[in-house]
């Protein structure tokens, strides 16, 4: 046998000179959040130029509030998309959570916190159900969560009307525990001229935790793997089912957080609310560099995507334009972001 007598230096590698080291700019530009960062800067400059109130520092709080309500959901949705799935039921799931807390506490005359905890359990259960059904049936997440979307939408309307005879939950501001819950979910602090809602804090915390989780932990590695190639991930011992169900439950948790803010900010929840929001969350994630096919994306990017929405929503107002244009802008942003991301990926990565 010839191969037994090989010398170690025969294995000492000759560097393959066809593969050049990529220059630093190319590596930077191949980060998934680059497209969204460029977009955010452009939008910022645009509204700074055309909308006078946009330049007012006091409005920073309002803009960040708008961004945070989207961002709190865009972060888990981005994680889910990196994990190879997406969720169409997120918008109405937020409403479901708010309604559940409110209706339960009000109907049984309980402390508001009991309703809040029940809503948490329900939101996590909805997430787990989405994930479980998806893995059990092998259906695409589009179909499964489209089903959940319609079910929740109908249940929201139906149950609310059944219990209150109305389209909104009853006001719970005079009930036990409301004030303490409002402190947690709907308070605000004033820093100089800027009024900051507590959701901004939650948004920043969630983004930091999720970004850390995705890039610096074992779980993050698994999320990339189950989204990139579930079979390969399973073959090397990654618990694919648990990871995916966990991601859906994370979405459920954030839907609960958003729902609680909705409830304690306005004392009451409109049962028809939330329809259409799911697309905004998904678009924010896509602008942030998440691929619809999974396995690639960024939490920070999704948060920047949410910031773009926050700026645009109010920027259009401040500029005195007709807010009808917001949706058209949404679509345009989505297309631009996808094309830019695609271009950047091809250019920087696969060379």
């Amino acid at each position, binding site marked *: 046998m010839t191969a037994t007598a090989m010398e170690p230096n025969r294995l000492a590698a000759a560097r*393959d000179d066809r593969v050049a080291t990529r220059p630093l700019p190319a590596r930077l530009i191949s980060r998934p959040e680059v497209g969204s960062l460029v977009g955010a800067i452009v939008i910022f400059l645009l509204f700074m130029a055309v909308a006078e109130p946009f330049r007012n520092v006091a409005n920073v709080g309002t803009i960040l509030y708008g961004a945070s309500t989207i961002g709190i959901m865009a972060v888990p949705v981005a994680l889910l998309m990196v994990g190879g799935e997406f969720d169409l039921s997120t918008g109405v799931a937020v409403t479901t959570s708010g309604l559940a807390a409110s209706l339960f506490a009000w109907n049984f005359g309980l402390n508001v916190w009991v309703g809040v905890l029940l809503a948490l359990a329900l939101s996590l259960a909805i997430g787990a159900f989405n994930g479980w059904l998806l893995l059990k049936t092998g259906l695409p997440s589009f179909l499964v969560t489209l089903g959940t979307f319609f079910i929740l939408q109908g249940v929201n309307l139906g149950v609310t009307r059944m219990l209150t005879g109305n389209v909104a939950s009853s006001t719970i501001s005079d009930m036990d525990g409301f004030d303490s819950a409002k402190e947690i979910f709907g308070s605000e602090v004033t820093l100089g001229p800027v009024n900051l809602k507590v959701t901004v804090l939650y948004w920043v915390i969630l983004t930091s935790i999720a970004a850390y989780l995705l890039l610096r932990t*074992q779980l993050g*590695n*698994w999320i990339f*793997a189950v989204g*990139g190639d579930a079979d*390969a991930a399973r073959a090397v011992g990654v618990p694919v089912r648990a990871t995916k169900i966990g991601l859906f439950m994370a979405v459920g948790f954030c839907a609960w957080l958003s729902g609680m803010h909705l409830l304690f900010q306005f004392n009451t929840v409109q049962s028809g609310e939330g329809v259409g929001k799911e697309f905004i969350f998904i678009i924010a994630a896509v602008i942030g560099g998440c691929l619809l096919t999974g396995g690639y994306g960024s939490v920070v990017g999704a948060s920047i995507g949410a910031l773009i929405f926050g700026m645009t929503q109010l920027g259009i107002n401040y500029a005195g334009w007709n807010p009808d244009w917001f949706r058209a802008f949404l679509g345009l942003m989505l297309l631009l972001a996808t094309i830019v991301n695609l271009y950047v990926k091809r250019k920087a990565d696969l*060379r």
Partner: protein
Amino acid sequence: MTTAIIGSKPATDHPEPPPLLQLDNVGKSYGNVHALRGVTLNVRQGEVTCVLGDNGAGKSTLIGIISGLHDYTEGAMQLDGQPCRFASPRVAQSSGIATVYQNLALVPLMSVWRNFFLGNEIRKGLLRTLDIKRMKRICDEELRRMGIVIPDLDRPVASLSGGQRQCIAIARAIHFGAKVIILDEPTAALGVKQSGVVLRYILRARDAGLGVIFITHNPQHAYLVGDHFVILKLGQVALDARRAELTLARLTTEMAGGQELEELSAELRGETGQRDGSDTRTGARSEQEEG
């Protein structure tokens, strides 16, 4: 196969080490399809066990059972003398069985080092943070030993060549495979030179004291490195022999179908003789034979 040598006898010149992994009459059925029947296989430490077989012979099912992807429905499997039944690839892995799959089990969009440590991440500190520096260093060392230098380990695996990907997958399995390593057709998609690199690496794994299971349909490659050969046919063991009992010619013939091939060859030669008579009739006949 009547000519098969069933049950290998211990070689006379040196005593056999006890088997690391032992399969005893293992079978696997999907409903009423018997994908694998009565497979007996001994994988010994410091030996290369070659499993040969044509497409559909049951090689993949056999790998699946050993690596924990499938459960077996008949027989018994023993690892280090202990009966075992792996519930998942993760369990098999932690028991010391590493597998390099034909599709390599690499995630294309993930970077080289993340793929290398996928499922076996090194963590540090209270927060169990990934120890990225250390993982990159180990990954680089292992790949260099394999003869591949990838200057940028953050590069996605999709941007590498087939040979480089194979090397990453094998280096990964060897790095984590404590006792038994299964290589599923590692040379099938490679050129001559890269096949040589892989075959050398198989011997390194053997010399490092691993039990190597080398799945292939290339008898030349198998004979270069193998100590023990098993040919699967239609889900059953058709030949089980040690190197001393075989020649390359014999292995090639057995692999290609043994007696059946001889019969076919005699038949085809006969037909060639008839050729001068009528070309068209022969053509039609051989088409029929194929069907």
